[in-house]
């Protein structure tokens, strides 16, 4: 009896010990802003490096969609790598000319891996990610008793286990300093969504400045985990918002806050960023899947083009861009509709899941069309100026019209299963699930079709013809 009591006591003490340890488990917290000027800032590199030029400016947007999106965007990278060109007398691949990649969710794995490791992606990414059943691996981690203890802590959750796995097996423990140093392109923008206001949150130092936080020491794996934290399956990633002791609001944000009547888009952009300045009201923020605010990752590129301080806008106005190419890799699928076949209304779980995800595709088409309208607007302005100048040239002594720093050729190219001509192939790919577990054959098909869709895109063909690439 005494021995039995002793055993029970030992079990209770052991449980209490492990639970106490578990209670200590905590996610890695983002650090405060550095006071050292030499701390690298993760932002767009103002000077092109290596074979990259400003004059041919190429940006990629990688959509969400789990491994499906990661494989499709990987196929596009391969296609760009094998497309050779001579630009300004230098032979290179189109991949050498990629200046920025903006990504959400599944696309963020490809974007971050390429940003960190460059061409190593073509040897390593398939065996380390695309061909791995990530879901099963993460579920196995849940069965580890040590992790039960850790998950008992209110400061450690399923997403932290996932981020640990990505950090150890995929991103090799790298933080954003590895993307920031040496300064280089492409500038990879990993996007998540702030749960509170539904706003896009990007892992750049400009965004982290509003949290008075240093991005350079933050693990890339956690940014990718936030970007792909699908509602219900994974919990949010939490960031700390530090007191803004030395923060100075940049002038374009100050101006934007006065633009309620003149530019509502700019006003809300400034206002949504500045809410973080109230660090007493918002000491923490919780981030979920980037697809909840923009499921194709195009909005940061649109902002870089449209915004006065955007890195694309400034290069255009400085006359440094001649050809602007934006490739949107959209792994959108068409969900089989079973709801409409049922007379009875859906249950609460179905409604909850639908409510959380139904908006993810709402604005994708709109965002692409907006980007195309911006392209048309620029081309029209250039055309009008040229046509008027031609008329004026016939008038002796007339003063030349003011001109842009340079005339640009903009292209907006979309890779989308919808463009497949073969209905059977299209249906097959559009019915692939959003998961992190696809078969080798499915991954093969997605990589191949990414290359095929890009090659067959009329806008891409026009761009290649412009460059005189057969």
């Amino acid at each position: 009896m005494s021995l039995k009591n002793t055993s029970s006591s030992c079990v209770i003490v052991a449980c209490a010990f492990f639970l106490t340890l578990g209670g200590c488990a905590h996610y890695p917290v983002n650090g405060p802003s550095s006071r050292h000027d030499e701390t690298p800032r993760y932002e767009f590199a103002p000077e092109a490096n290596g074979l990259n030029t400003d004059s041919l400016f190429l940006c990629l947007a990688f959509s969400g969609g789990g491994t499906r999106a990661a494989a499709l965007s990987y196929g596009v990278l391969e296609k760009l790598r094998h497309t050779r060109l001579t630009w300004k007398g230098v032979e290179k691949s189109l991949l050498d000319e990629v200046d920025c990649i903006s990504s959400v969710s599944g696309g963020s794995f490809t974007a971050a891996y390429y940003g960190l490791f460059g061409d190593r992606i073509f040897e390593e990414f398939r065996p380390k990610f695309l061909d791995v059943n990530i879901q099963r691996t993460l579920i196995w981690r849940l069965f580890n008793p040590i992790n039960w203890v850790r998950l008992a802590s209110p400061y450690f959750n399923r997403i932290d286990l996932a981020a640990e796995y990505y950090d150890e097996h995929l991103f090799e423990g790298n933080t954003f300093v590895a993307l920031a140093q040496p300064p280089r392109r492409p500038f990879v923008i990993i996007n998540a969504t702030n749960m509170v206001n539904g706003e896009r949150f990007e892992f750049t130092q400009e965004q982290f400045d509003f949290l008075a936080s240093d991005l350079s020491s933050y693990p890339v794996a956690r940014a990718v985990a936030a970007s792909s934290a699908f509602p219900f399956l994974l919990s949010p990633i939490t960031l700390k918002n530090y007191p803004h002791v030395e923060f100075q609001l940049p002038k374009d944000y100050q101006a934007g806050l006065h633009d309620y009547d003149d530019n509502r888009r700019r006003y809300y952009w400034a206002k949504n960023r500045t809410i973080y300045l109230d660090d007493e009201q918002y000491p923490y923020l919780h981030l979920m899947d980037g697809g909840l605010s923009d499921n194709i990752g195009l909005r940061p590129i649109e902002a870089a083009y449209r915004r006065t301080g955007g890195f694309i806008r400034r290069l255009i106005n400085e006359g440094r861009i001649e050809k602007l190419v934006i490739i949107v890799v959209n792994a959108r699928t068409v969900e089989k509709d079973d709801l409409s076949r049922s007379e009875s209304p859906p249950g609460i779980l179905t409604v909850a899941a639908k409510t959380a995800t139904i908006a993810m595709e709402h604005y994708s088409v709109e965002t692409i069309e907006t980007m195309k309208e911006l392209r048309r607007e620029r081309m029209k302005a250039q055309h009008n100026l040229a046509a008027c100048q031609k008329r004026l040239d016939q008038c002796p002594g007339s003063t030349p019209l003011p001109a842009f720093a340079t005339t640009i050729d903009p292209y907006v190219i979309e890779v989308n299963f919808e463009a497949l001509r073969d209905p059977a192939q299209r249906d097959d790919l559009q019915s692939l699930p959003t998961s992190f577990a696809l078969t080798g054959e499915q991954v093969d098909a997605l990589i191949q079709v990414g290359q095929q869709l890009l090659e067959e895109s009329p806008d891409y063909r026009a761009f290649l013809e412009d460059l005189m690439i057969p």
Partner: protein
Amino acid sequence: MEYLLVHFPRSRRVLIDDEFNGRTNELIELEAGRHTVSLGPPYDNYEPDEYTVILKNTSALDPREVTFELKEHE
């Protein structure tokens, strides 16, 4: 988009909201709204120091125009 033309007797980089963004005597394409406009270095040879403009309803053929003068000692 909106359009701004900054006149100055010389070709000089233009600062919009404290960031370099185009050159004088060339069309500068910007988003609508309030902006501060000044010139790049040397900072002591032009006037006024800066303009605050609200860009709205402009076009490439009818941009908002501001003029900086070269200071006399130049």
